[in-house]
């Protein structure tokens, strides 16, 4: 196996992902755990880029690293009882370990199956982002919903500000 820039990038991203995941389950402070989760999600986004799935990568950054990470952080901050937790293992750990093992086995089966040629590798059209973009502005496709969604988001934003402001 030759070492190419892609291999190095993969290794770094894999360390980010796994290290982040490890940090989530091992850190005693919930806020730190949430930050580690962001790191792990960032690693996954990078892996999507390596897999030539830029759309998934962009969505991963926008939705998971942006919205969901913020949501989790805010939830932790407004829930005082969670903030006070310091032990990293609670009584439900055998259940969690069992589910984690099950997921690991399933994923392992799928990944090894891909390597051994048991499962077909999905064929992704290379220009799917281009098609998506074209569909958004094509009058035959989704021009109207696209525009309406923009107006809707603007209205929602104004509404949120009206509700929040005193």
């Amino acid at each position, binding site marked *: 196996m030759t070492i190419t820039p892609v291999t190095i990038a993969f290794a770094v991203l894999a360390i980010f992902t796994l290290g982040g995941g490890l940090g989530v389950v091992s850190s005693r402070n919930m806020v730190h755990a949430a930050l580690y989760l962001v790191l792990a999600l960032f690693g996954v986004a990078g892996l999507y880029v390596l897999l030539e799935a830029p759309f998934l990568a962009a969505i991963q950054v926008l939705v998971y690293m942006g919205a969901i990470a913020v949501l989790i952080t805010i939830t932790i901050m407004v829930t005082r009882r969670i903030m006070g937790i310091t032990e990293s293992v609670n009584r439900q750990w055998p259940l969690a370990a069992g589910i984690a093992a099950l997921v690991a086995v399933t994923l392992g089966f799928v990944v090894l199956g891909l390597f051994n040629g048991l499962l077909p590798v999905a064929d992704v059209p290379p220009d799917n982002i281009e098609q998506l973009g074209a569909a958004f502005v094509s009058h035959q496709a989704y021009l109207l919903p696209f525009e309406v969604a923009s107006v809707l988001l603007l209205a929602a934003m104004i*509404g949120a500000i009206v509700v929040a402001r005193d």
Partner: protein
Amino acid sequence: MNLPTLESINLAASLPVLILAGWACLLTAIDLFISPERKHWTAWLAVLGLLASGVALGFEAVAYSQRGAVSAFGDMAVVDGFALFLQGVFLLSAFLGILLALNYLPRHNIERGEYYTLLLFTTSGMMLMAMAADLIVVFLALELLSLPLYVLSGFAHPRLDSEEAAMKYFLLGAFASGFLVYGIALTYGGAGTTLLSGVVEALVGGGPAPNPVLAIVGMGLILVGLGFKVAAVPFHMWTPDVYQGAPTPVTAFMSVGAKAGGFAALLRVFLIAFPATGDTWGVVIAIIAALTMILGNVVAISQSNVKRMLAYSSIAHAGYVLVAVAAARYPEVEPLAVSAAVFYLLTYAVTNLGAFAIVIALERDDGTGVEVEDFAGLAKTRPWLAIAMTLFMLSLTGIPPSAGMVGKFFVFQAAVQASVGDPLILTVTIIGVLTSVISAFYYLRIPVMMYFRDGEGQANVQPALGVALALTALATFLLGVVPAPFLQMARHALLTLAG
């Protein structure tokens, strides 16, 4: 990739909606430069937008009478008589909604420019709903209709009942939207397309590999989602609390606009996309209609708060329109039933906005003064108000000479035609007539209170409110005595398949 041309988008046909949505976006920015003491300028600018949209709508109606229905934005929207008529109703309701709010907001110390921009946003959502010919557009239009209304119902915060109303409306509304989206997803899974014209092809058997079971389950979920918006039993739970808690001008606009918007989607989706499964949904909607009329009218009897009573009355009126929807599943009755439904929505709009205008006139600055007892003696102190309120109550009951009577007559006429060979519709029609009689009991309690009880009868009619009152009272009376021209318009309010 072919670039869109003006012809293929058919920009002219969708101009009324585009003007209103665009003006709402612009007004958001303009409002920032209007000082807090002059927020009524924003209101008049919003009225200007409604007027411009109305002029475009007028041109479009003339064009429609010459060339018939056209589709716009590919097949995503269709501009037909149905869409044009309801868009007119929405513009009128929004105009009256602004007039009702103009003096109310400063009096209650909740005047902010966003009120008017949000009102324009929700109106453009309603207008889009009337012309939506694709399930995705239906969903987006419904959200554009709902989101500003959630905010508007909480506009009087930190008044607790207003916050409660917004919270309840938002949570239950989001839940209902979930049903709608899930229904749309299943319909897409069953039919392979979200275009209404494509769904009907797939269900009738022309499309590739249709899955009717998925589509029928999807149809049911869509019915739940839209049933919430029109406040049909058993999806009406939110209505009384939200109507009572929201600022009264919002309640007035919401009871009219959101309901008509929901019915626009309900009629178009079910009659255009699902005619093949009419046996299934026809029965379900007929039963829902019966339950809605019974529950709305019976529970309204025991209400002492007029806003709450009008909320139950609004549930009951949804039931009458649903009778027309159920009748419309027979192709030979469909034109009559659809025009009956939209005409009913028009009569309900002017009457209900008028009734709420009176409630606003009576409401004190702390939000009290809206009990039935507060109407006592109004005939002596404010005779014109008493006459107008009597007219509105007669119209809501369906007694001549009023708009409501013509609307009800039209709906029952369609239902009787459909009931030939359909005992269920016949039963529902009889229930409708009986519950109308029951409704007289609680509606006419208010005129009795005004004319035969002694009381202080305080009211505060400010100029804009007076104009709104005069307009609605005149419209209610005219629709009742010379309905012919409006009926003629409603007869042209036909649904057309996109294309």
